[in-house]
């Protein structure tokens, strides 16, 4: 729909099959390049014979090699079926920005190494608050659950982050947390905390600070006026109401 809106003239004719040069189309090339290496994983067998899911057979051995879609010609689209495929796509002529190779990870910067620097993608075990947006439950559902008397924790009444008894507060309950010396900020869901103790525990875990080192850190926060204050100087309710973001600093002396 979106693409057709700009048309003042009738749409360009679909690329006729004869002029469609499959070899210049990156996707097809990549399929071919995949070959048998990547498709060495056995695919599922269909049908009632497959009772035992642990007993999965190679399709490679039984496939014909006429299909240019690679060695495991089970359900791969062969190029003879191209017309079906063409109808859906207005294929641009130039497009592979990169030629696919069999070894996606042969470069120096191994993606998994790079990921470690990007700590927002690191997964902390049993530290749900450290992961933004996981599990994928909408904000107001999270708050409902924490008001549950049955399954809830110590204090079931939410802090002042909630607005009245409505379904949803008008502000998100996530605030940014930075630690002195760490470039990347994290986010923490305040609605699941009810005391400085709980909040501090979570923060220590999030930043990997051991119990012994706890004492050398202080929790500060920035209030609505932009001033930085020590968290423990104010009561919890005041803290929750006025804070904008948090910072863990190393305490001196």
């Amino acid at each position, binding site marked *: *729909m*979106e*693409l*057709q*809106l*700009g048309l003042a003239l*009738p*749409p360009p004719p679909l690329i006729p099959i004869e002029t469609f040069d499959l070899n210049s189309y990156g*996707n097809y090339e990549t399929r071919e390049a995949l070959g048998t290496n*990547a498709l060495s*994983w056995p*695919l*599922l067998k269909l049908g009632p014979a497959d009772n035992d*899911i642990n007993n999965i057979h190679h399709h490679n051995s039984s496939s014909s090699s006429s299909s240019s879609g690679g060695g495991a010609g089970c*359900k791969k689209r062969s190029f003879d079926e191209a017309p079906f*495929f063409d109808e*859906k796509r207005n*294929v*641009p002529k130039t*497009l*592979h*920005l*990169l*030629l*696919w190779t069999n070894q*996606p990870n042969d470069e120096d*910067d191994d*993606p*998994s190494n*790079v*990921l470690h*620097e*990007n700590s927002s*993608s690191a*997964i902390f075990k049993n530290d*749900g*608050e450290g992961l*933004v*947006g*996981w*599990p*994928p*439950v*909408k904000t107001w*559902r999270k708050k*409902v*659950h924490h008001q*549950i008397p*049955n*399954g809830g924790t110590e204090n079931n009444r939410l802090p002042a982050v909630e*607005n*009245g*008894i*409505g*379904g*949803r*507060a*008008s502000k*998100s309950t996530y605030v940014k947390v930075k630690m002195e010396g760490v470039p990347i900020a994290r986010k923490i869901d305040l609605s*699941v905390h009810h005391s400085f103790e709980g909040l501090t525990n979570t923060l220590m875990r999030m930043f990997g600070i051991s119990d012994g080192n706890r004492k050398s850190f202080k929790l500060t926060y920035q209030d609505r006026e932009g001033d930085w204050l020590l968290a423990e100087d104010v009561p919890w309710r005041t803290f929750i109401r006025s804070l904008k973001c948090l910072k863990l600093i190393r305490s001196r002396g």
Partner: protein
Amino acid sequence: MLKKMAFSFPDEVLEHVFSFIQSDKDRNAVSMVCKSWYEIERWCRRKVFVGNCYAVSPRMVIRRFPEFRSIELKGKPHFADFNLVPDGWGGYVFPWIAEMAGAYPWLEEIRLKRMVVTDESLELIAKSFKNFKVLVLSSCEGFSTDGLAAIAASCKNLKELDLRDCEVDDLSAHWLSHFPETYTSLVSLNISCLGSDEASFSALERLVRRCTNLKTLRLNRAVPLDKIANILRHAPQLVEFGTGTYTADVRPDVYSDLAGVFSSCKELKSLSGFWDVIPDYLPAIYPVCSKLTSLNLSYATIQSPDLIKLVSHCPNLQRLLVLDYIEDSGLEVLASSCKDLQELRVFPSDPFGAEPNVSLTEQGLVAVSLGCPKLQSVLYFCRRMSNEALVTIARSRPNFTRFRLCIIEPKTADYLTLEPLDVGFGAIVQYCKDLRRLSLSGLLTDRVFEYIGTYAKKLEMLSVAFAGDSDLGLHHVLSGCESLRKLEIRDCPFGDKALLANAAKLETMRSLWMSSCAVSFAACKLLGQKMPRLNVEVIDERGPPDSRPENCPVDKLYIYRSIAGPRFDMPPFVWTMDEDSGLRLS
């Protein structure tokens, strides 16, 4: 001979024929047949759907469809629901309202999803469209009850006001009194998202009383139980009803009032709300249960035995939303009682607890899949899964069109074999040939993506988190899933190669979201430069991407096709990659 006849149809005849074609897809196909059909179709299209508000500009829409009456717009990417899209990213509806206000005094319906709607926009709607009938705001934010007051006051022909899942600044409940006493055309009202400590019950009651065509009424938590009876008494014709909040103590007079009033609602098919409900009040709704087709208990914190009792009274249930308090035992009862069940959503009562707090496992989902022949849509949160269960589910229920499974702990393996869940999800895509939407979870390698690329030919939307080993995974999906429109990925080791090798694919999709993956800034720039019909947005709250080395991964990436070019309403933490310098700051 036949050809001649086709060209000699007068336009009015064709227009009449086209008027029977409502679906967007079909309309688009019709407009592609020939120049004259394109022209006729565009003049008689009455409903416009824009899946991404940035894919096209309001002016372009208005130019092509000069006489539409109804528009549906979607803004933010789906992951915005889970706080992954920072505040201020965009999705403002005001420019659309402004353009339409000038061009279309006769606009009747506006439906918005995940957009920022201001009071100013609402006031402009109220002022500009004299025959305005339908306002549906789904997961929207940015407005207050003042804006609603403007709508209430001016839209004399308003039939539908639906604020599902919105974030509204609750300044005053008195906005309801802005509906004039002469106003009676309300058919559907959904205010379940509103807060308001003080609710204007009398205004609400009067409104319900005089709007005799009211079919849907979804109240918010502020309306207590005793008021519900008063309201329902005046609206026995209701088809869909959402309760307010229940009181903590059971009062016999309130109970019998409620039971009486529910028995008089002979048309009731859908119930929701149930905040703070206590089991003793539930029997009050038993009289309507046998006719119920839709039940939303996802806010009801009642336990399995009470849920079982309730559900066994509802043999005609087609849609059930419930918390995992229902447990496997409850789902087994559901499977045997509700043979018409089509959609099931089971939400976690304690999403952040490390240990399970209820006995809900994969067995519940297996039971429902085996027992409910019409089941086609599932959203299921649980803490363990096995390939065996998934294969059983897939084979017994090949009619799934939507399958969303969330195993709460990321990268959880098959609890029986400790293997990845590749084979299980592979079975889902292999057997469920009409699968349109899939959400993955658990321990998954590149193999699951190979299955998906091979089998999921009708798949339109895929959500992936904490899965895969390498670019090969992403490559399988982009090269294999022919019908793919929306792909959203978080925390997967997918990098530049798969994206660049499948660049053309992105133009055939509505959008791609990737956050906490391994796509470098250099790759984003390249994509932006080479693909002029894609908007490549880098979202990074750490600071400008060019302040880091080019091979550094970007935090979040949102790519969508557009004929409107790059947008100009971006906040400071969003950069669009385009042909010029590869970097454009807002």
